[in-house]
């Protein structure tokens, strides 16, 4: 053997490997045309996407092989290997840059047996507006009571990188379990943020100016610690609901679970003074899901009027009358001088229509109110009829997001910092596993068809056995490491004090 040739062999080998990684298949020479759209998964047909999103990799169901031809301007490129269409990130970025404000045409050819078919082409519209580079969410098995391995993760939307912000297994063991939930940021930035931990090492993790510390927000005057949070956009204040939450199980209905509050109020937490005060604790009102308007002068929230039946235990009363609980959307003006609030003002009367509206979120421009509406209750992710609705606060006109919604449950949503994108959770894929979807909201407030947050492996959502919830946009990643959070979680919580305003 001529050993001097070894480097050449290695070079040729490496080049062959690189070539196979980045190969562009050729289009079939013979095929028949079909008017059917290709059955691609996830469905990215005719969607509008941001110009800085990761490649929309997909696979074609019911095909043995496929080739997709992407066309933009005078350019074309083909992708496809087996049933999958996976686009290299570098090439995808170039395509998006070239098509900003325009669209990409996609023609998919599929093969079954020896027969190739060319399907009806579809477009991928590329918006001029970027999307916030990061999102965060909790991943959890769609369980009922049991939980294990919960984590709050952050994902870069421009690529497929996902990192753990905090995982409950860093402090949990068999004897001491910990549930984590409801993360929230101040104005899309991560130096001021928070999330909750319940049971083992329980408390609320407050990050203030980049320093984490655990606090206990339960006081004698409030019904629970803080639950659903909203950071004030400029001040170190967090509005929370306090809730007594229960759940029960449907013996037959596909909804499967009802999660309900038997009581709930609103509180304000002053991060710097470590003080809690009451925002709203009306008798026979269950206030929940506070959300600050972008100017920080108004607090929106949902509230249900519910009079408990004195002759029945509260929990039993709720279980038997769960479908009578209907939430409306209210707002209160915030007085920044003394941290007090005005009387409530009804914004959206869902109960008058026999509906229940929750999770009010105001667009960054302040014009639109986005909320979830179902038939009853506050936990709409288990209600298939739940949809996203948009109210124009200047006119009061309200309408469902017909293009973004599906026949399955849509729920928790958030606006991107530029107001052009919404991120929400939906069970449209298989009814049980919540996935994250993004939809474009144009300047006229019109919604566009939603698309699943792209994954490197097109079959990822089929194979992944966890749900995503509480999706939030961020303009920067969380910089504190999971280990730092774990160390802070193990410390004793600072007890908040109550102040009457």
């Amino acid at each position, binding site marked *: 053997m001529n050993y001097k040739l070894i480097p050449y062999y290695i070079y040729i080998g490496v080049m062959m490997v690189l070539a196979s990684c980045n190969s562009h298949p050729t289009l079939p020479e013979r095929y028949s045309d079909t008017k059917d759209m290709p059955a691609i998964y996830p469905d990215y047909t005719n969607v509008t996407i941001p110009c800085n999103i990761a490649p929309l990799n997909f696979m074609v169901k019911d095909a043995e092989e496929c080739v997709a031809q992407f066309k933009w301007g005078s350019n074309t490129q083909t992708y496809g290997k087996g049933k999958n269409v996976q686009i290299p990130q570098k090439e995808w970025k170039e395509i998006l840059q070239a098509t900003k404000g325009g669209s990409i045409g996609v023609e998919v050819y599929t093969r079954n047996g020896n027969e190739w078919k060319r399907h009806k082409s579809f477009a991928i519209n590329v918006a001029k507006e970027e999307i916030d580079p990061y999102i965060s969410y909790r991943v959890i*098995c*769609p*369980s*009922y*009571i*049991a*939980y*294990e*391995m919960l*984590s709050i993760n952050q994902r870069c939307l421009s690529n497929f990188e996902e990192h*753990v912000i905090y*995982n409950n*297994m*860093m*402090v*949990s*063991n*068999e*004897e001491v*379990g910990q549930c984590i939930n409801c993360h929230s940021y101040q104005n899309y930035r991560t130096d001021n943020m928070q999330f909750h931990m319940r049971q083992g090492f329980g408390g609320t993790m407050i990050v203030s100016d980049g320093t984490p510390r655990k606090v206990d927000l339960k006081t004698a005057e409030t019904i629970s610690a803080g639950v659903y949070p909203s950071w004030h956009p400029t001040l170190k204040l967090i509005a929370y609901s306090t809730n007594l939450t229960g759940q*029960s*199980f*449907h*013996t*037959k*209905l*596909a909804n*499967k679970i*009802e999660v309900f509050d038997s009581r709930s109020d609103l509180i304000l937490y002053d991060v710097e003074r470590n003080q809690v005060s009451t925002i709203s604790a009306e008798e026979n009102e269950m206030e929940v899901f506070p959300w600050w308007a972008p100017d920080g002068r108004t607090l929106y929230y949902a509230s249900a009027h519910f009079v408990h039946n004195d002759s029945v235990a509260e929990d039993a009363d709720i*279980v*038997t009358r*769960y479908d009578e609980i209907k939430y409306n959307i209210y707002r209160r003006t915030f007085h920044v001088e003394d941290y007090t609030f005005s009387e409530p003002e009804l914004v959206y009367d869902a109960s008058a229509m026999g509906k229940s509206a929750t999770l009010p979120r105001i667009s960054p421009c302040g014009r639109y109110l986005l909320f979830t509406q179902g038939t009853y209750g506050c936990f709409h992710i288990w209600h298939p009829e739940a949809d996203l609705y948009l109210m124009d606060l200047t006119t009061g006109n309200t309408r469902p997001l017909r293009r973004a919604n599906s026949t399955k449950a849509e729920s928790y949503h958030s606006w991107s910092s530029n107001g052009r994108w919404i991120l929400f959770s939906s069970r449209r*894929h*298989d*009814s*049980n*596993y919540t996935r994250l979807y993004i939809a474009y909201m144009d300047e006229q407030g019109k919604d566009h068809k939603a698309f699943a947050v792209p994954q490197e*492996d097109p*079959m*990822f959502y*089929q*194979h*992944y*056995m966890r749900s995503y919830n509480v999706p939030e946009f961020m303009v920067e990643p969380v910089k504190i*490491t*999971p*280990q730092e959070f*774990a160390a802070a979680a193990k410390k004793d919580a600072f007890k908040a004090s109550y102040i009457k305003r």
Partner: protein
Amino acid sequence: MKKKNQPTTPTTHKNPRKTGIQWKPWMEVLLFVVFAGWILVGMNSDYLFTVQENSLFLASDVFWKEMMATPHGFICWIGSYLTQFFYYPAMGSCMLILIWLGIYAVTRKVFNLKKEWSYLALIPPTAMLCSIIGVGYWIYYLKIPGYWFGESVALLLTLLGTWGAQTTKGWWKSIYIGVWTALGYPILGWYALLGAALMGINHLQKENKGGSRYIPLATAAILIAVCPLLWYYHYHQIRLEDAWIYGFPLFATKDSISWIMETPFLLMTLTCLALAASSKRLQTATNSQSRYLHAGCRTIVLAGCALLIWTTNFDDYNYHAEMRMYRHTESCNWKGVLEEAKQCPNAPTRQMVLMKNIALMNTGQLGNRMYHYDNGGMLPHKRDNLVIHLVNTAGPLLYYHYGKLNFATRWAIENGVEHGFDISILKILARSALLSGEIESAKKYVELLSLTTFHKDEAEELRLLCQNPKLIKDKEEFKTIRELHAHITDDLDSDNGLCEMYLLHNFSNTMNIDSHLLQEVTLNYAMVSKNIQLFWPRFFQYATLHQGEAMPLHYQEAAYLYGNLERPPFDISKMPFDKQQIKNRYIQFNSIIQHNLKKGLKEQEIAEILKPTFGDTFWWFYFFCNNVSSY
């Protein structure tokens, strides 16, 4: 130098006595293989099949990444892959035994065990065998993916790594230990640390002189202390305090912790460390020991191993019968379920009773055969403080067959979240979703099943149903479930983790005349509840729905008994009770009770007297089947 340090082979072994059979290492190996094969295949086939049903390996990127998210992840992945082969218990057992033979051979090589001491190399495989056959009800609670193969593979790799260290010298030895520990930890977890310790100790035994002989051991000690700490900052799913033991099997639930289950691993660890620490002594000792002493030690160790295996083997009859019945129930082999119930030599567990009742329901024999079987209930046998719940061992399957598909789904997911998803859970989830009309959900579970190695056919069968849901109606195995599911009403409810109590309370309080099947189930559960007020309305419903048909014997027995115990709101003398089977027999039953009560016999004694003759009646169940423990 090397030759000087090597022990000389005693001459006695070069010239063995010609009388008698000289013991050879292959004999102990043969003994171990035969014994292990018999214990595994002969005594534990049903258990091993259940092992693969309660495990999961998916040929997907997601599964790989989830496994690799913790130290020891590769071992879990490879262990999960190999565990699938217990689908054919003999094949899986052969693979496992081959790994153990590898452990034996490498143990001898690593610790340089001469044939006089070769039997000591059988202790680690014995410990591994014990760790498999002593699992018991932990099979439903163990959270370590691929446990059944993973631990043996990890030990084999550890020993091979230790063997590899022997090929290095001087500083290379320390570098080898460093690389092994740093790179081995994510693959092997705790076993990499054990390997480092073995390498250090082994080196100390081999080198006689000089302070430098301590360097590898010191290196190992430092790396054992530091490596897990450094890797802790890479992983996001482990506690800092667990970093040094990650991969060492822990048997813990939120209610219980078992040290007994960890004994095999402690034995294996201590044996390896002891062999490493005494390898030099074992070499020199062979020169002076008499062959009788060796024979004695060998006999004690081999007998000890055999005794350990025998006593560790979890051979509780009901434990194995439950697994066989579960398999029959899952495949709707009702004949198999009933045969198993009939053969049970002692009191069955509640799980067995419920499965037997499901089989009777599906074969239309509830009214005539239910009390021909033992309806008592023995608590599952256990050796530690493990808290066993029926809802964890068979809850989803029981709910599924009673048409409670939401509850089947709920507990399949709860069990999966708490103790790991597995094949049996995926099957229940897919079928429940299919029968609930949640086709997209079913497709997901079917897709996952298709990623396994031995369940692709079942996945394909279910996939066809997903593609054409109309075919579901024609499937005989779904008939009963569909009928029960169609007629149950929706309520908000919870079983509070007590599956049997929920079924008893729910069915015995249900009134339904739209489904003959559901109505009969409600009547049966009213009888099981021994509640006379619940019985009568359901009895009359049954009679109305089955006019012109013979009234099953057990229902007659209950009606006749209750009619005699309490004054019913009607005249039972006009009811057409079977004279021979009911009236005469009841008189006989009652007179024996009265006679024995007069004799002063206790209830339990009377129960035993009556059981051979009347143990097949509702009367015996009503009076003597008491204190049944649900769990």
